[in-house]
């Protein structure tokens, strides 16, 4: 049991990408390349560059998590009618410094 779970978690780790990898999808959702933008994780307060978020693909949609606390900051779902963006986990997202 635990062996399977560990194996699955190790496999999940292999599937992690950087926020940079989701740049194309994010550009389609935001209308601009936001990979070098910064935002604040609402769960732990960490300010991160979008390119350094952790990206999980393959589930229903693409999930971007905070690299520090692993909280979900941005979620993008591809629906038949277009992209649905949920960025409630990310505050003050912008080009900034």
């Amino acid at each position, binding site marked *: 049991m635990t062996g399977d779970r560990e194996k699955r978690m190790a*496999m999940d*780790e*292999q*599937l*992690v*990408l*950087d*926020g*940079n*990898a989701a*740049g*194309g*999808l994010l*550009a*389609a959702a935001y*209308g*601009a*390349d936001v*990979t*070098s933008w910064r935002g604040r994780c609402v769960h732990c307060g960490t300010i991160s*560059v*979008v*390119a*350094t978020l952790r990206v999980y693909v393959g589930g229903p949609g693409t999930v971007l998590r905070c690299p520090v606390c692993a909280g979900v900051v941005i979620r993008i779902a591809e629906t038949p009618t277009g992209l649905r963006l949920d960025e409630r986990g990310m505050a003050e997202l912008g080009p900034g410094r």
Partner: protein
Amino acid sequence: MARPLDWQLATVAAVRDETPTVRSFTLRLPDWAGHRPGQHVDLRLTAEDGYSVERSYSIASEPERGPDVDITVERIPDGEVSPFLHDVVVVGDRLEVRGPIGGYFVWEPPLGGPLLLVAGGSGVVPLMAMLRHRARAMPRPPTTLLYSSRGPDEIIYRDELEALSGAADGPGVAHTLTRRQPPGWTGYARRIDEPMLAEVLEPLGSETRAYACGPTALVETVANGLVRLGLPPERIRTERFGPTGT
């Protein structure tokens, strides 16, 4: 001018074998604003029934070659997209492309150095764009590429790397061959670990900027190792390719 979010139809202008399992494709883009070394494109394949898949591929060529861009693709035997590119796509075909993408995993001369580039397998691709650009630009900070491959036949851009490293102000190139070494091999012969990183980092010094790219597990090892060796996390930029090649 196409924005990075718009799909456009690129024409395959050339196909070239790099290794027995890696092939480069020159894409001619009708509407290209230029790219920065380290950026990637997204490629979309759509079947007749409307089913479509997207994958990211780093740009291998230097910006000076625009509006042509090269991508270099490793064939993953049980993969969906890379075998199609290898087995089906020929010169003259058209491919849907979006890009250039990514404003963070990039290096240009004003960013400076010294530079430590660390690659596993096809992770060398965006780092090659940086090296090719560096060779045609100024200034040229001290640079070392640490490059992990399984065996000698799997080293992508082998001859070009040798030529680059032999040039005046050329980069240092350190290979590690993890599974098969030719007779008389004097390079590293194990997976990248912290002592290896320490050896290549030491001559470059504590102001080094690092770029690590390749299979997710390798990038994880490199990023953690460099932090333990004292590089500040904000000077380590990573590009994880996912599970491929592990």
